[in-house]
């Protein structure tokens, strides 16, 4: 425990130190960015503009990139980016209405429809990698704490037998849980008499930082596993709790006209609008998390429409942007599309139809199963997955799908059915190992 705390503090201090290098000198950072080819600028400039809404991981990432950029001699940089600049010329970028200050749909659309798009992507990746490598030369290796992704397919979801699932990972194993699997989340969060839970552990370590522990719920169950004093130490998002905000936001998003330029303007306006009256009290004072939610909803992927898409996309974005140590993701039920109004699925079905909602357990289970797998596949994109334990609990079957990181196999044999207590104790021990 003490060692973990030290590691976490080291990591946090390193992140803050890195962030501090950039924050006071944004103008010089922007000048650095101007050295890059045009198509690389909007994303970086946007991150600088929205610095305070970035997670520590993102701030560190930008800082590191800028350090790498600064460390290159101008001649080295010119040699590095020359092929990309030449490609931009072939693509016609100088003639485009291309925003350099932020990522826009128009930018993305113009890039994607260029016949050189694939080449452009390759070149950008090459340049990014080279500049990051230059920064790495001077940086200290980051600590690699243990991580957990705990996915819950709640009891109303009739998912099929695990052995019929599309495989997630060759290391996966199926566990029969000897007891009520519904207790597992609470046991992990609250711990047991001889072992503190995740919530207490993070409350002690986090010191107000909420980027390391995420609770993402299709309904509103997970937040109840946190004591009031622990709530500020987690990024807790509930699709159900967000309903008033979602409804208002969806209504406004649906006013977006069918034009890319106008859409960019409307989306920018939505991003900067004062949403205070619609935010749930649970997100009071959490500006960064609110900004995350707005970004999440504006990036589509069904997060505004279906609760399970919200859970998957929020978890994927949290993994990408915050690299949390723990994610709890809980899938739930959605309603069936309603007669007649179901053709306008992007509309608020409760608003446009007075018919009562009817649950769709089978469809929800199909959706949840593929989306749960997507969370793990999202984690696999980042090196942190090597320290990550993934456990997907199927409450209805009292079973679980376990992917243990290399060298961290559970202490029981293949035929053993652990109790919820044993399983949660092993998970929590993994996190503090």
């Amino acid at each position, binding site marked *: 425990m003490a060692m973990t705390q030290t590691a976490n503090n080291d990591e946090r201090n390193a992140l803050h130190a890195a962030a501090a290098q950039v924050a006071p000198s944004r103008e010089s950072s922007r000048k650095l960015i101007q050295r890059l080819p045009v198509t690389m600028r909007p994303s970086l400039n946007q991150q600088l503009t929205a610095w305070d809404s970035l997670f520590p991981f993102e701030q560190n990432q930008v800082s590191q990139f800028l350090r790498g950029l600064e460390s290159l001699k101008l001649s080295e940089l010119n040699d590095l980016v020359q092929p990309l600049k030449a490609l931009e010329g072939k693509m016609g970028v100088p003639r485009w209405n291309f925003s350099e200050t932020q990522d826009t749909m128009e930018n993305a659309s113009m890039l994607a429809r260029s016949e050189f798009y694939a080449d452009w992507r390759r070149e950008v990746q090459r340049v990014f990698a080279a500049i990051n490598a230059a920064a790495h030369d001077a940086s200290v290796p980051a600590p690699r704490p243990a991580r957990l992704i705990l996915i819950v397919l709640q009891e109303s979801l009739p998912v099929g037998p695990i052995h019929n699932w599309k495989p997630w990972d060759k290391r996966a194993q199926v566990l029969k849980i000897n007891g009520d699997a519904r207790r597992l989340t609470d046991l992990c969060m609250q711990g047991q008499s001889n072992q503190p839970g995740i919530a207490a552990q993070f409350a002690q370590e986090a010191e107000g930082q909420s980027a390391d522990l995420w609770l993402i719920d299709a309904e509103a169950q997970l937040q109840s596993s946190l004591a009031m004093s622990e709530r500020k130490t987690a990024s807790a998002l509930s699709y159900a709790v967000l309903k008033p905000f979602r409804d208002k936001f969806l209504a406004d998003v649906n006013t977006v006209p069918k034009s890319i330029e106008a859409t960019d303007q409307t989306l920018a306006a939505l991003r900067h609008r004062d949403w205070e009256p619609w935010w749930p009290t649970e997100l009071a004072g959490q500006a960064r998390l609110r900004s995350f939610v707005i970004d999440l909803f504006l990036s589509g992927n069904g997060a505004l429409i279906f609760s399970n898409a919200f859970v998957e996309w929020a978890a994927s974005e949290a993994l990408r942007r915050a690299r949390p140590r723990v994610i709890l993701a809980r899938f739930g039920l959605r309603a069936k599309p309603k007669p007649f109004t179901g*053709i306008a699925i*992007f509309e608020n079905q409760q608003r446009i139809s*007075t018919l009562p909602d009817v649950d769709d357990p089978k469809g929800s289970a199909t959706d949840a199963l*593929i989306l749960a797998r997507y969370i793990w596949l999202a984690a696999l994109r980042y090196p942190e997955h090597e320290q990550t334990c993934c456990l997907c609990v199927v409450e209805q079957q009292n079973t679980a799908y376990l992917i243990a990181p290399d060298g961290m196999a559970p202490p029981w044999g293949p035929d053993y059915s652990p109790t919820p207590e044993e399983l949660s104790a092993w998970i929590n021990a993994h996190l503090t190992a």
Partner: protein
Amino acid sequence: MDESRRTLLKATAALLVDQWACARLGALAAEPSTGAGRKVVVLTCGGMRREDTFADSGFQNIPHLYRDLLPQSVFFPFVRNAGVTSHYNTVSSVLSGNWQRLDDWGKTPPSSPTLFEYLRKQMGLRQDQTWLISSNKALTSKIGSSSVREFGPAYGANVIFPKQLLINAVVHAAAEGRAVHSSDRSTVQPEIEAMLNSDNYDGLGWSVGGDTSSLDILTLGTMQKAIEDLVRTNAPVTGDEFTFLVATEVMRRFAPSFLTITLSDMEVAHFGSYSLHMAGIGTVDRLVYELWTQLQSLPAYKDKTTLFVLPEFGRDLDGSTTNGFFNHRQNSESTRVTWMMCLGDAIRKPQIIENPIEHTDICPTIASLFALKNLDLPGKPLPGLWL
């Protein structure tokens, strides 16, 4: 599907087409005025992965395509979309035989002539002989003709969006603060009627030939009755179902030589519901089979029609940064490589042709079917067909 609901949808579709016919110079045409009598129908549907369709893991999702139609077809299992994998660009590329790189939302017309224009210019076809009937709201009426000076709207197709009529009605009701209630059909009915009664079909994304865009009172009354019936059914109405019914009604009344239908129910995938995406694939499977049955039963089409069926693209790989099946913008085989099925008149013999082909090969193939000459197209006519 419930038969009474189907009947009502058919009635609505029939009346809709009646209206277009009456609104256009009052002239109904059952036969093409010129041409060799060959008919071609192209049905494209949005993004469907091979693994969810023509693969061991997907056959169960497409029983009609796999069991009933594949044995009669020339099947191309490797069809590449090498262009922009958005709906408007893809359908424009298929129709023009050139990779189109246009505004994704259809702000500009294709930059090279479409089959509609080639057909109408070379064969002297009337506008009611070339149609595009689309479920997809990502398309616009600009897809009916190109920006090429020698061609353009004068040679364009009728382009209509039946699904959009229903969506607009529902959305309009919502915008006005009115909810839809199954037992109170008056809540939606006026919305659809208002859409139909619009002074400007283009406001709906429609582009029907001629200048007439208003409904005569008699037809309007009949249409209103059909819509009333449609609303009263209180059963799921899919946009693709309505698009299909309108398309078959157009075939019955106009017998166009060249008809393109695009379906889009499976695009619910963008919202993250795999189960609803699969339901959309099931709808395509059923409607293609019904379309084929229709083509065998309509005298104007029987034994002289070639049907092309193809997804516009696949969907992104599981685990991709673009969120897997949700989207179709990844430069991967999963997104770019799909399949195509050809049925009917031009089939030399049922077979599977594994040589890869591209979307841009479809236009020269159809051009050859109609004996169009002197087209400068990059693609090659497909093998396995009588051209």
